[in-house]
């Protein structure tokens, strides 16, 4: 539960920040907390692969910002994204929850074998990402939304009982490519804005 709380708070911090660099650091926090949530379901190698993907992605966004002040002011979009994400998470959990409903005991600290907290975190991240991406004005918030979504997707895929190494590596690459494309667009958009 504590990791789930960190995911939620770090998402709000990334969403609410006016500076891309702070958002990138908050995104790293989201990824780390998400990894802690599902630490029991993956091997160390798989966790390392996805952790590296997240680290590189956040690093790319941090570097793409070029200075501390660059970013996009979320304004009213912060509140809209938060309200939509909260409502959508509850709706998704009510309709799409696939984790076993038997004996749900969510511990405050430690593993959650039922996968409930991982699914809640995934729904929260995906709905936050959709809300941010749809209301984004520039690639700054577009990249932020996309990385939140792919982090949520990684959590959902981890709950599957299929061989995970290939999928972990692939999703790690997807995250890095999203960050690279986002960083490229951020740099180009800045050139346009400054000219």
């Amino acid at each position: 539960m504590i990791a789930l709380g960190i995911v939620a708070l770090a998402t709000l911090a990334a969403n609410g920040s006016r500076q891309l660099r702070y958002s990138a650091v908050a995104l790293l926090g989201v990824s780390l907390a998400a990894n802690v949530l599902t630490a029991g379901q993956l091997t160390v190698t798989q966790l390392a692969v996805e952790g590296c993907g997240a680290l590189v992605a956040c690093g790319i966004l941090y570097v793409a910002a070029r200075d501390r002040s660059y970013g996009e002011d979320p304004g009213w979009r912060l509140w809209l994204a938060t309200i939509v994400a909260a409502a959508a998470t509850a709706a998704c959990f009510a309709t799409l929850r696939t984790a076993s409903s038997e004996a749900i005991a969510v511990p405050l600290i430690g593993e959650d074998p039922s996968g409930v907290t991982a699914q809640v975190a995934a729904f929260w991240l995906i709905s936050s990402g959709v809300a941010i991406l749809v209301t984004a004005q520039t690639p700054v918030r577009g990249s932020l939304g996309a990385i939140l979504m792919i982090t949520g997707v990684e959590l959902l895929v981890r709950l599957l009982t299929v061989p995970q190494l290939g999928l972990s590596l692939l999703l790690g690459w997807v995250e890095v490519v999203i960050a690279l494309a986002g960083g490229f667009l951020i740099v180009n958009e800045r050139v346009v804005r400054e000219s």
Partner: protein
Amino acid sequence: MIIAAAPLVLAAAACGAFIFRKRLHLVGPFALVAIAAAFALVVLTPLDTTGTILDLQLRSSGLGHLASGVILATLFLLVLDVWLDEPAYNFFPTALAVGATSLGVLILTAPLAIFGLLVVGLLVPVGSFTFQVQRNRSVEAATRHFGFVALGGCLGIASLALAASLPHDQPANTFVLLVVVLVVAFALLLAAIPFHTHAALLAGEVPPAALALYFGVLVPTTFIAFVEILTLSGLLPAIVQVVKVQDLLHGIGLTSAVGGAFLASGAPDQRRLVVYSVISNLGAALVGIATLSGPGIIGALASVIVTGASASGQLLAAGALERRSSPERPIARKAPLAALAFVVGGFAMIGAPPLLGFPGRFFMELIAYQFAPLTGAALVFATLLLIVGQLRAVLALFGQGVERWFIEPRPIAGIVGAVIFIALLAGGIQPDGFLRPIASFADEFLRALRPL
């Protein structure tokens, strides 16, 4: 390992091409050699070879072979055109990476992995979409494309992951919701109407070669991936039982087919005409898939593959005409061969006989009539609108007449168009070799629809 050799060669070549991408005299031939090597590897890989890489199962299917061959041939022509006629250093590594991901998508058998790799492939061209950013809106177009791909990709993978973890006693509504999300995710990626706004902006602002890479290679790959994911994910038996999903596919397909054709018939320039024609043909192909029948699936896949090839030829020709005629409107007098290539590409786009586009369109419209007469009539109407659009383009190009027929300097787009036309003509005269692997895949699809 041989089964993954072609995509791995292209991926390694993409990294190499990125390192020396600014040495155009080197990177162009290097990219061509890499694509030729990948083509040879695809041809040498026996059919139905299987393999495993990082826990992921691979399979070389007939459809995969066919689509890989067409994609690599298209990429070869695109790279040749960019190297000789329209130098853009970002294009070469992008084209190689797109080739690697497309070939990877065609050999993977895990739906989640197919979708993940497809998203990577769709994001790669962002690098070649932006050019001369202070003079146009290419950054905005690329940003919109990025948003659509991220949204569609993540929603699609999430819905597939949730569908894979559904317990057997899950209510039907949950399943319907997930499949609806999956279909909408693909509609976003395919730029189906009403999710086409990024395609409209791309058509106006992006270099023609990058547009050809997207609409000629990636969009057909996305469509094939969609059909493969439906087949491999085990969702089909449930889709048959829930009519709503079939209706949704049908609705999106018809809207796209007729809407795209309407937009194409009134398109203000050649690029938009091609892009809207592709959207219309994709819509018709979605209708073909929605019929869940053998002829519908064969027609849809055949039509999409041919549409990709002809769109590439037409977009390159449109780009050459723009460059030769700039700053005036493109006219045939400035580049007669490119104008001819545009016109013959249009024949393939509308599915005119005896070109290879005809069998696919014929199958789709026939089965659509059998499915519902109104649907068949709508597809024929869409074809008529596409013909009107192509005729308008011919009049705009040749309306002022051509005083003297000559071959323009560096007629690469014209030659590429001629090569594509000859290939489509040869395929149209002898369509068996083209349709057989697609028919074999349609059998697999139908078996997945009604498992024993």
